[in-house]
């Protein structure tokens, strides 16, 4: 499986007379974009804005951030199952726009409560919160929608996703033909080629990726369909992920990864970079957290370890979304791998309390002797004071209490869009004092 991925870096994003990319400047025709978003059956209102890193803007109720991809050659499409048929992706040529995201904001019609409750999250494009928020470092096309009366949560969720993918695809399409007209417009800034070539003699390594899928509005889509409560660990080629085989449909927004993060998973990319040099990337194993009981958690862990063993792996990097009881099967997975003789390294967030003096892990196993800390997600920090709000007028903490969204607030990563995963990507760690 060989995937060629020309990347076009967007360094400027603005409204213009036509939708086009030239010299790193992406201009958008407003009425064209509005038409892509418009969906009167689902949206009572829909507003599109452009925001840039460093601007004093706060986005509220952020649902997703999508990286613009378009398939140029190959059988499938980008984001298969969501933006087109569920045909195996990961081969051919996919164009990628770097430095720009399509961001959706909104509140489902009837936010569920209790165990199925959703958690809104914010993005500050500026100030000290930015490193904790996904999409704070890209130029964003922000789509804010509100549902028509009577719309179901699920229908709103899919309407928002469809709008995001229509716009993302249109943005990516501005790269088409650019290579044929190098004098007029810029060629790709980089062409990455993803192919698991020979890596004989190097340690076979897998990435075990635990995803979050807990029911309506707390979903991760694999080829357009949620994993489901009976999900059994499965195998996927890293190229499929790079082509968007995983799409976020999860409204517990601090604990998840956005669609953009799924498509550029840092561990997958790192293992790819090391492939043939330090290690041999043998594949990616997808697992699900929040299994309902001990039996299912252990079954999931055993199954993942067995897949790794069947791939001939001797090493694994184990990563997770979510927190809470999902930490248990995460730890079981590390234990199961180690017991099969597969060396496992985990990347774990800490829940050490606001002062950092609580036990950092909710659960652990003796075998988890090599963990990377992505920092204490409870530690508080001060945001800046935004001059402009998009996506809502109430700031909601993870605990459910509210605050004036115009303020400089004391928050933790638990309020930030993809806060936990973002801390890992941004290099946060916790050290002893």
């Amino acid at each position, binding site marked *: 499986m060989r995937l060629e991925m020309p990347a076009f870096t967007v360094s400027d994003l603005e409204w213009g007379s036509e939708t086009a990319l030239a010299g790193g400047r992406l201009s958008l025709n407003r009425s064209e974009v509005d038409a892509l978003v418009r969906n009167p059956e689902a949206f009572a209102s829909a507003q599109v804005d452009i925001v840039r890193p460093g601007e004093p803007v706060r986005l509220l109720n952020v649902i997703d951030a999508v990286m613009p991809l378009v398939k140029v050659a190959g059988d499938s499409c980008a984001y298969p199952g969501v933006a087109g048929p569920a045909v195996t992706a990961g081969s051919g040529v996919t164009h990628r726009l770097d430095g720009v995201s399509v961001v959706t904001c909104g509140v489902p019609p009837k936010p569920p409560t209790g165990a199925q409750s959703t958690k809104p999250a914010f993005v500050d494009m500026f100030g000290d919160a930015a490193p904790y928020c996904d999409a704070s470092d890209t130029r964003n096309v922000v789509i804010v929608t509100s549902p028509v009366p009577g719309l179901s949560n699920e229908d709103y969720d899919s309407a928002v996703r469809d709008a995001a993918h229509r716009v993302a695809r249109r943005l990516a399409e501005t790269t088409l033909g650019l290579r044929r007209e190098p004098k007029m417009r810029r060629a790709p800034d980089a062409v990455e080629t993803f192919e698991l070539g020979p890596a004989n003699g190097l340690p076979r390594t897998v990435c075990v990726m635990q995803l979050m899928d807990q029911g309506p509005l707390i979903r991760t889509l694999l080829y357009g369909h949620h994993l489901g409560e009976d999900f059994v660990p499965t195998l996927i080629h890293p190229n499929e992920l790079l082509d968007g085989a995983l799409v976020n449909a999860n409204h517990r927004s601090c604990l998840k990864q956005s669609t953009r993060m799924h498509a550029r998973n840092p561990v997958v990319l790192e293992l790819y970079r090391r492939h043939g040099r330090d290690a041999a990337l043998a594949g990616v194993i997808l697992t699900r957290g929040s299994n309902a009981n001990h039996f299912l958690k252990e079954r999931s862990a055993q199954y993942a370890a067995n897949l790794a063993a069947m791939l001939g792996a001797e*090493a694994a*990097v184990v990563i997770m979304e979510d927190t809470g009881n999902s930490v248990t099967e995460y730890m079981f997975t590390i234990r199961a791998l180690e017991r099969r003789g597969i060396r496992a*390294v985990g990347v774990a967030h800490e829940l050490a309390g606001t002062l950092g003096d609580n036990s950092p892990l909710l659960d*652990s196993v003796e075998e988890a002797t090599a963990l990377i800390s992505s920092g204490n997600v409870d530690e508080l920090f001060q945001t800046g004071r935004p001059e402009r709000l998009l996506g809502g007028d109430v700031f909601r903490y993870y605990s459910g209490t509210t605050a004036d969204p115009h303020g400089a607030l004391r928050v933790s990563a638990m309020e930030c869009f993809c806060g936990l995963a973002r801390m890992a990507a941004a290099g946060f*760690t916790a050290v002893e*004092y």
Partner: protein
Amino acid sequence: MAFRVVHYLNQFYGGIGGEAQADAPFTVREGPVGPGRRLEQALGGDGRIVATLICGDNAFHERRDEALAKIVAAAREWAPDVLVAGPAFASGRYGLACAAVTARVGAELRIPALAGMHRDNPGAQPLDPPIYIVPTGETSVEMDAALEGMARLARKLRSGQPLGPAAVDGYLPRGIRRNMRDKRPAAARAVDLLLGRLAGAAVETELPIEVRDRVAPPPPVADLAHATIALVTEAGVVPKGNPDGIEAARATRWARYSIEGMERLRPGDYESIHGGYDNAWVNQDANRVLPVDALRTMERERMIGRLHPEYFVTCGSIGNPTEMRRMGREIARELSAAGVTAVILPAT
């Protein structure tokens, strides 16, 4: 002007004598004594040892409170800016004394205080509130390095600058974790750690796992017919409206509610506020978590002596082990004081 240091030593390092002199009573000497001289050199003119407090290890531990009171009073007379204790190396009784002196003098005089000892010294166990301990070797062979480290930390504490991480500023971790940003993202560090392990290198985890509790099992209940049985749960089942505001996740509160005279928990009177499981079934009938109805019939049939008239509740969703341990201790104290024989803990 050089800052004023008061130094604590045991009878051996204080020059009184070895184990035979461990009963030596508390004394004060003006200026540095024994290792204090080299400590003062290590302070390089920034600090001056104004007095040395010396107490025999036996004398300290046999009358600990009295000794500590005398030590605090003596220290106060010398108006120190910093207190330094030890180094005690691997000596357990000396280490415990150094830790206690550091904690007490630091708190009462409100001055920076530090001790020096080996990390496995019993005195290096985490205290609440935590104290600063400079790690040293196991024996006085390592004296110079120990005193250098202690002088460095004393200067830094005295300067009032915020301390860096334990590993950077040379003290033992105090059970407090703070965030910092590494230049490299988690993914790159993870792959490096993994390759290091495969290469057989001694790699270091960034997150040491906790050793779990092992509790000696209490003996079986000998006579159920005379036993008082209590119900304690983390299921978040509370009287409707959650009068004590127990948190739906990350709880820090527990509460107790009377069930005296109740045949069963009446449907509609109770709800679960637990944010981690579907509460529908328990909201219909709270006896599905707290089996009050069943226990009442057993009480009448003399299968048990009686059902304790209150149940205890918190919420276990994303429960932090430290908080849970504290609440467990608090609830256990209540149960024990009330003469409860045994407890059933329905878990969700």
